[in-house]
């Protein structure tokens, strides 16, 4: 009986890990694959290796939190399997409807739902996790906004990320040992930038492993049904499988949207998000890569879009008098020097980048991340109240 339950549990783990592999490979390698710097299979291979390293090292802290700290009792094997089904359900909903649901949030929500139903919630841990969930997107947004406003334009001028046709490196085999040399069109700058993109992708894969490996297996580890080491291996295999299969699609959807933004900006976002995720994971806080990434992206765009006005004015949503005069001046200049293409109507006002990030839209955007975990907590709570035998 126990074996059957465990097998069902492992299958649920594999399903969760498989889907995590699909989505996080898309985020970590989408930009590099989109830029044509490496093949999808190479990306999936690197993903698997670094997910394992992340899960094996830093991920153990998150594993401890999920399997032991959120509720005061251990999660029984049956309850763990049920929790995994809720995590899987969350992922399924995310896939079917295209709504981004951070897996770490769903996991904590489902375990907390179990705790609420059995009266064993460790409120101190939940409060600690929640406070970091609130602070993290703010930190990401702030870092993004700071870089977007003050550093990005200068960085963009200095750093050119190039990608020439032809192989990156050629190997001279005339001697005894093959000697690598730059490819026919390769510049040193290109070689360096390609290496940077690869390192950043590996870093992101590492942080994905640290934060996401525990999501797939922690509910089974808690009862001791599965030891942490084989659990990490199972999760790695599942995530790797997802990376080699369904990630082909997510690299085009999620990764495709990431590759809309310039590679330099994508790299800034990836470094920031990976660092946030790795640091929080080492503190044992369950966090999804996507939470850090998204707010850093929005912050970067917002910071750049609002650069002509001071932060205070941008937050208040009003530009000073001088700004409006400036805008009018620029508009005249543009109309004078650059005639609009034929068939282009005269606009009564110039385009304003601030319209891309109005406060209402950002609030709506953030609320999207609150709905997911709330739903998973409510569903799991309802289930464990209705079926008390399992908990």
């Amino acid at each position, binding site marked *: 009986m126990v074996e059957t339950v465990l097998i069902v549990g492992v299958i649920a783990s594999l399903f969760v890990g498989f889907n995590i592999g699909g989505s996080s490979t898309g985020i970590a390698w989408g930009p590099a694959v989109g830029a044509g710097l490496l093949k999808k299979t190479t990306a999936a291979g690197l993903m698997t290796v670094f997910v394992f390293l992340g899960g094996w090292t830093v991920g153990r802290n998150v594993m401890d939190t999920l399997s032991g700290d959120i509720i005061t009792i251990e999660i029984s094997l049956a309850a763990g399997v049920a929790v995994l089904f809720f995590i899987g359900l969350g992922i399924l909903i995310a896939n079917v*409807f*295209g*709504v*981004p649901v951070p897996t770490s949030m769903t996991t904590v929500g489902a375990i907390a739902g179990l705790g609420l139903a059995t009266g064993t919630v460790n409120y101190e841990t939940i409060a600690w996790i929640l406070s970091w969930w609130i602070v993290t997107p703010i930190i990401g947004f702030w870092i993004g906004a700071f870089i*977007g406003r003050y550093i*990005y*334009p200068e960085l*963009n001028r200095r750093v050119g990320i190039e990608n020439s046709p032809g192989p990156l490196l050629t190997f001279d085999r005339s001697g005894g040992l093959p000697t690598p040399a730059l490819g026919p069109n390769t510049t040193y700058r290109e070689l360096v930038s390609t290496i940077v993109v690869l390192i950043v992708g590996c870093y992101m894969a590492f942080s994905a492993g640290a934060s996401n490996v525990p999501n797939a297996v922690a509910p089974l580890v808690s009862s001791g049904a599965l030891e942490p080491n084989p659990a990490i291996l199972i999760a790695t295999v599942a995530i790797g499988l997802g990376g080699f299969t369904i990630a082909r699609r997510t690299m085009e959807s*999620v990764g*495709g*949207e*990431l590759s*809309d*933004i*310039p590679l330099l*900006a994508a790299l800034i976002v990836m470094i920031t998000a990976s660092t946030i995720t790795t640091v929080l994971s080492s503190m044992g806080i369950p966090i999804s890569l996507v939470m850090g*990434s*998204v707010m850093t*992206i*929005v912050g*970067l*765009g*917002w910071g*750049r*879009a609002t650069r002509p006005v001071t932060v205070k004015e941008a937050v208040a949503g009003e530009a000073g008098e001088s700004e409006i005069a400036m805008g009018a001046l620029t508009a005249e200049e*543009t109309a004078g020097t650059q005639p609009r*293409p034929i*068939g*282009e*109507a005269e*606009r*009564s006002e*110039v*385009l*304003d*980048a601030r*319209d*891309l*990030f*109005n406060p209402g*839209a950002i609030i*709506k*955007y953030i609320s*999207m991340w609150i709905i997911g975990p709330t739903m998973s907590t409510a569903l799991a709570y309802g289930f464990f109240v209705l079926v008390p035998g399992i908990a």
Partner: protein
Amino acid sequence: MGFRVLVPMDDSEMAERALEYALETHPDADVTVLTVVGVPSMLMGDAVSLALEDDLDEASREHAAPVLKRARAVAADHEQEIDTTVGVGHPARVIVRDADDYDVIVMGSHGEHSADVTRRFLVGNVARDVFRRSPIPVTSIR
């Protein structure tokens, strides 16, 4: 200045039908096609890529080019000329703000942003928002 018709367009086929209807119903009017770029999405990719550009006007026109090209092709089929214009950000907001310069809006009842849940949540039902807030009459194409 003659009768001015504003046709907001996106990638959808419905938008193309709205333009056809506008051209057929108002053959002597000045028809302007408006398309909005940098629309909110799951990772804000389009909006952020525009924000990071040095020249927002030029980048916006580039992003809008595919839709505007199709609009011109439809107009050419009807042997009529159209004006085109580009806005950034939230479609309904831009359309309503621009509406003051026109006599009527002709638009599809639902567009590409109704396609998935995330976009519907972030962008909303553009046609419905325009009906509610537009200062001028709105014709909806179904």
